[in-house]
């Protein structure tokens, strides 16, 4: 079939000049906006003072949050501003819990190389928070050390993984409060059993994430270590720890959040001191406004703890 290729060549030959001719126009179309844009950048708006620019960008990032909070408060106010409402309105909370809001540090003494919190229940919210934070520091500190160690163990050894992982998988699903009776039975006292509760709640994500991190060390890093003949200690400090830091801190971050959940639960049941107790106590005294103030405090402190651990993680990852 000789005619077919003939016509094919003819059509392409015809098409060619058209497409060649079309190219410059399309290029012009594309160039036009570009040229305008460069004109615009040639005379930019008057630059502001850098501090003003910074303030502007800061306001831009925080403004949506602020507006959202105001909107929510307004809805809350409108919905609850009537006699017999189940929840107090924001203005009522301000009126009823004025003392709690403006004087959170009641009964807390700074100085003498430390801070002391007054005995008995008559302490501001901050005082209760500090008591709770102390417990968290001990319980979470223990879970961080033991959790990382166990995580490295089961991440490194297949036998240890097979032996312990099923156990951990089952235990990690036990809610914090379910540990409380056992904890009380073993420790007999409120303080150590609260700390144990925090420990047992926070440890699982730390163990499991650390183990995942160790298991996922790229084989090329292991090969580098082998070629360099690093001894086990050098391998641990120079390869394993720095390679595992991101996973480890994911676990530590989840852990700190969970430990904060656990402390409130533990103190609500056990009473005495701490922010959990404060909530329970104010509920029992029908001071719902105080409860709401405490709730906000708990949220803020939990948020701060999470950010703190994340910040430490970033610092460690940079220096490791």
């Amino acid at each position, binding site marked *: 079939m000789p005619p077919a290729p003939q016509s094919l060549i003819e059509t392409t030959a015809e098409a060619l000049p058209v497409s060649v001719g079309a190219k410059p126009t399309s290029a012009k179309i594309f160039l036009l906006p570009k040229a305008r844009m460069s004109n615009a950048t040639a005379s930019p708006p008057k630059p502001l003072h850098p501090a003003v620019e910074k303030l502007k960008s800061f306001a831009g990032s925080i403004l949506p949050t602020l507006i959202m909070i105001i909107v929510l408060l307004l809805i809350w106010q409108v919905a609850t501003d009537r006699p017999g409402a189940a929840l107090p309105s924001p203005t009522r909370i301000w009126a009823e819990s004025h003392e709690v809001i403006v004087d959170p540090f009641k009964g807390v003494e700074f100085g003498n190389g430390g801070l002391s919190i007054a005995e008995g229940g008559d302490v501001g919210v901050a005082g209760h928070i500090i008591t709770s934070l102390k417990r968290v520091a001990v319980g979470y500190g223990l879970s961080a050390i033991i959790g990382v160690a166990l995580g490295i163990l089961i991440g490194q050894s297949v036998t240890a993984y097979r032996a312990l992982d099923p156990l951990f998988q089952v235990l990690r699903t036990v809610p914090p409060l379910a540990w409380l009776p056992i904890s009380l039975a073993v420790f007999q006292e409120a303080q150590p059993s609260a700390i144990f509760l925090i420990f047992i709640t926070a440890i699982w994500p730390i163990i499991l994430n650390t183990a995942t991190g160790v298991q996922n060390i*790229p084989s*090329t890093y292991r090969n580098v270590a*082998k*070629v*360099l*003949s690093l001894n086990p200690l050098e391998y641990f400090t120079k390869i394993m720890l720095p390679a595992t830091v991101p996973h480890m801190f994911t676990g530590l971050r989840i852990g700190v959040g969970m430990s904060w959940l656990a402390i409130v639960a533990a103190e609500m049941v056990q009473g005495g001191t701490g922010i959990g107790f404060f909530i329970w106590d104010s509920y029992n005294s029908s001071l719902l406004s105080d409860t709401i103030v405490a709730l906000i405090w708990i949220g803020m402190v939990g948020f701060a703890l999470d950010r703190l651990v994340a910040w430490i993680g970033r610092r460690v990852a940079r220096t490791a």
Partner: protein
Amino acid sequence: MKKRSYLALEGIEVGFPTKLGQFTALRDVDLEIQKGEFVALIGHSGCGKSTLLNVIAGLVKPSRGVVFLDNDVVDTPGPDRAVIFQDHSLLPWLTVEENVRLAVDKTRPKASKAERRDWVRHNLALVQMDHALAKRPSELSGGMKQRVGIARAIAMEPRVLLMDEPFGALDALTRASLQDAVMSIQAELNNTVVMITHDVDEAILLADRVVMMTNGPAATIGEEHVVTMARPRERLSAIDTTDYARARHAIVHFLHERYTNPLDRAA
């Protein structure tokens, strides 16, 4: 006692247990390499080149056969057989200088701090990376990372330098500049080198001898070609020489006639 070459592989066989039974990757590999010789191993993907290199490195234990280095049996990894990995494998949390320093600290434990520092910088200067001492690998291009990888390996002053497709992940132009860097370093240090590649031109340009491997399973050495081009070699003038053409002819016929890519046959 039999006189062995500087690096001698004798009757190497590597098998892996799989679900379908024993899989033999390499069989009856015998290879002799002289001191200061640059050998390129070439073959299709999956033929076991990397496995063979890992056997020399001590990272893979052969099921049969022995590797001798200077008449000593080597069967564990060690800094005397430095490896340049395809993916550079620099440690991302260390700076360029610290990455090389880690190797120098291990291989020169007796040197003073200042001596080690100078040695690290000297080797980074050899690969033209002394301008980026404080940078981290993530801040470098692929070619720069591999330069640091080379510096780390040569700073160990290995008895054998092993290169596992060192430029496989780089674009053609970067690859050419790294090949030039390797040639100039090799002219200076005269290392014993085993390099894996599947780039025919790279093999001819860099190597004194090109060792061609048959396809797996049970791959072995099929043919060898001594590249007779004089050194120093220069990319542009080299490609027009008859030596180059002869080498290219031998390798291309081996790879695409006698042992075609197993994937081509499947397709």
